[in-house]
């Protein structure tokens, strides 16, 4: 094993993984975190903690990851390249590993123009591929990005961070033909698992997976398919119209608007998607991003036959 990550153990043992996601609060509201985390406890193998997602200032993913650890949930700390350079990131990785955070997910990061501090300067010292490479080097070669060994002094022992390295992949962005290559680059950099952008357009996702399988990439990395329940008609419309590259089929919108109980129908759709994704060769798990709907995760997991979670 590369780390003490439970997620790594589950994936390595060939069991179908389920990960969740928790967006930190825009305040010091710890109860908000604990409440969301309670819904996820025992229902998912690890929980992604987003890092100022959509460039909106929130509690740091590091801090929220520690709160989850206190509650005996396994966090996956997300790190973006937008706000921190290679010094700050490596420093955070050492700190995270010291606190027993075993999973780190590497992202480029949304541009600051989408957030609430649009006049800020961005960093982008390194990109997501280079971030993966840097973390792999820290773990496997026990060296910092500058080539120095990870030890406190010449005579001190090497103490490198043991981490399970993740990344995101977007099968739906352009150029379509480059998307599998982008995954290959992340694999070459040393990524252990990837989670996809939320999937609604099954046809295009299948097309991407075909490219992935043709190159044998699914055998080199664990791919978790991203799913986000469309909890309302409004949300479905927003996803369809406002998120670049997301194609939400009209049938989902029709089903949601005709349903007497929209929430129940939303869950039905989500469960169907999970079943469909599970059938695809090369999918090692589901990444369930129930945005501001964490309380429904147990029900979705139950109906998708993903409970109980394996003990490892």
């Amino acid at each position, binding site marked *: 094993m590369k780390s003490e990550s439970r997620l790594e153990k589950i994936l390595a043992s060939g069991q179908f993984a389920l990960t969740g996601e928790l967006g930190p609060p825009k305040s010091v509201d710890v109860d908000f975190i604990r409440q969301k985390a309670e819904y996820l406890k025992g229902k998912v193998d690890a929980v992604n903690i987003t890092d100022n997602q959509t460039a909106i200032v929130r509690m740091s993913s590091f801090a929220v990851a520690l709160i989850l650890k206190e509650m005996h949930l396994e966090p996956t700390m997300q790190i973006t*390249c*937008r706000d921190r350079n*290679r010094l700050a990131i490596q420093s955070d990785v050492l700190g995270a590993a010291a606190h027993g955070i075993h999973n780190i997910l590497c992202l*480029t*990061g*949304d*541009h600051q*123009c*989408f957030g609430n501090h649009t006049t800020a300067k*961005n960093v*982008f*010292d*390194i*990109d*997501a*591929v*280079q971030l993966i*490479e*840097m973390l792999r080097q820290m773990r496997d070669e026990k060296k910092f*990005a500058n080539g120095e060994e990870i030890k406190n002094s010449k005579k001190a022992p090497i103490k490198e961070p043991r981490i399970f390295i993740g990344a*995101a992949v*977007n099968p*739906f*962005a*352009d*150029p379509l*033909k*480059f998307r599998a*290559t*982008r995954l*290959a*680059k992340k694999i*070459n*950099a040393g990524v252990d698992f990837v989670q996809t*952008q939320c999937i609604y357009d099954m046809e295009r996702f299948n097309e991407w997976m075909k490219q992935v399988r043709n190159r044998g990439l699914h055998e080199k990395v664990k791919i978790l398919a991203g799913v986000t329940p469309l909890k309302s008609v409004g949300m479905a419309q927003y996803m369809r119209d406002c998120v*670049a*590259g997301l194609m939400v089929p009209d049938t989902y919108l029709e089903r949601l608007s005709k349903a007497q109980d929209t929430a129940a129908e939303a869950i039905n759709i989500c469960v169907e998607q999970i079943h469909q994704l599970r059938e695809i060769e090369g999918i090692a798990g589901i990444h369930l991003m129930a945005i501001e709907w964490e309380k429904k995760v147990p029900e979705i997991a139950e109906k998708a036959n993903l409970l109980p979670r394996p003990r490892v």
Partner: protein
Amino acid sequence: MITAERKPFEAVYEFARRHQKILVLGCGTCVTVCMAGGEKEVDALASQITLAARQKDDNITVEKHTIERQCDQEFFDEQTSRKIKQADAVISLACGVGVQFCIECFTDSIVYPGVDTKFYGANTEQGIWAERCIGCGDCVLEKFGGLCPVARCSKSLLNGPCGGSAEGKCEVDPENIDCVWQLIYDRMEKLGRLDELELNVPANNWTAGRDGGPRKIVREDITL
């Protein structure tokens, strides 16, 4: 070329009204070509200040003059020097380099910027200039089929594109920004070099750029 845009007139007039004798000093090179600070723009700004001063009853007289380059000592000739010294203040329509160099040459003079300096760009269509280079100091164009991701990707990604590329456009401003990674992909495909994009580009050394501190080129072979 270095591109620039005229500052809003109100801002420039605020500089002008602090003084009585103003020299509007144009630059005959980049800012002339991008129509922000050449002889024509000097004429226009001088007339505008004169007119506004008359309307507001401010006592401002305006001289105008344009030299070939404000970033090169040899063009500050005797006539220019006299005009600068005779004025209470100069409004320079050169780029930020020219304004600063003018101050360096005439340390007793007050020189205001009359334009906002933008970027190194090309005149892609009539009336349109677009950024092509950020002067990173370590040209990588050959790797990317002649298109620069450092300058033209909103996130300067060297292993792009990110998830924000849709139909050839960058999500930061789909109407105005092409995804340079789409352009790189298309170009490399045309050149039969797509395999090169499979290679991971290592973390960049930014010291050749602005992150190494203000830069200087010393050519020993031609220094005196």
